[in-house]
């Protein structure tokens, strides 16, 4: 998503997409809910992938994503139209994921046999089988570290875009990414992965 990787024509298209986003938001605020459908269609795939890697389970990702789009719709008036819509929708999705992860923690089991073990995301997505170990280690990262890895390497945002999405200084994004990659390397090496 970094502009430096785009040609002049591509850059024009990206700019045009941002304009389309703004127009859709305006239409939506005027009561045209179909306009929000256009925004969903444009962003649902990358947003779903981001949330999937954040929460680690396809069913949970579906729920969190749907909630994120609903929240985005409800709070559309608070979106600052001088900024990019995609930064805002990703921020909503990442925050929803982090809130969901926090809410999942305080569970106390009375009868351990009743609880069905959570499926590994790689089991639900055969395409991700090859990356099973990598995914397991990503899911062990703290959500704040996990988010920068996903936004940088899976959705390919630039540092300044990630900074805007997460509302962090760019240097904090870089330092979190550095630490996260270091943790991932150490974990993979401990599992016997090497060059």
């Amino acid at each position, binding site marked *: 998503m970094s502009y430096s990787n785009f040609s002049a024509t591509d850059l024009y298209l990206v700019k045009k997409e941002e304009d389309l986003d703004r127009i859709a938001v305006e239409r939506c605020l005027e009561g045209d809910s179909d306009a929000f459908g256009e925004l969903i269609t444009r962003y649902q*795939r990358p947003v779903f992938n981001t949330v999937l890697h954040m929460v680690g389970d396809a069913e949970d990702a579906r729920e969190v994503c749907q909630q994120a789009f*609903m929240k985005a719709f409800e709070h559309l008036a608070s979106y600052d139209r001088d900024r990019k819509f995609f930064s805002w929708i990703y921020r909503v999705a990442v925050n929803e994921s982090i809130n969901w992860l926090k809410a999942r923690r305080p569970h106390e089991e009375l009868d351990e046999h009743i609880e069905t073990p959570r499926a590994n995301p790689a089991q639900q997505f055969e395409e991700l089988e090859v990356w099973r170990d990598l995914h397991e280690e990503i899911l062990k990262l703290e959500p704040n570290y996990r988010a920068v890895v996903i936004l940088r390497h899976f959705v390919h945002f630039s540092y300044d875009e990630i900074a805007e999405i997460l509302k962090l200084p760019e240097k904090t994004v870089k330092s979190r990414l550095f630490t996260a990659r270091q943790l991932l*390397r150490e974990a993979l*090496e401990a599992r016997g992965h090497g060059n």
Partner: protein
Amino acid sequence: MAISDEELVRRLESVPMVEGPDFRKAVLGRVRAGFSRPDRLKPVRTLALGLAWAAAVAIVLGIAFFRQPSPQISGATMLSNVNVTQDGDRVLVKANIKGTLEFDQTRLTKVGTLPDGTVVLKRKAGATGPAAIVYHAADGEVLKTSVAVN
């Protein structure tokens, strides 16, 4: 053997995007059903909710005013098959059906389980206010209550 940063980045960036579900229908369905509106369009709904809330409060106050006080067991709550009893700093949860217990871990902590299956919770030091207790029965029923910890 060590993994270089470049190799890790290569592995991370080779993860393909999966095709996710289509949210358009589900989200727009809820939007059109009136479950949700953008903030800018909300004043009418807010006013309607406010009036409904005021009417509900008036009814509850009216019933409370005219109703005779009835005897009740202090500190105990019966949720069909789950009995929650408060004894000072301790809260006892006895379930007669299988399920999972969830509680406000910011205010309560689990002390242990008695031989009869009663779960003993204790107020955390300094915790005050209502602590939610939720029991998810295996049959899908969700039983909720709260206890005041002081």
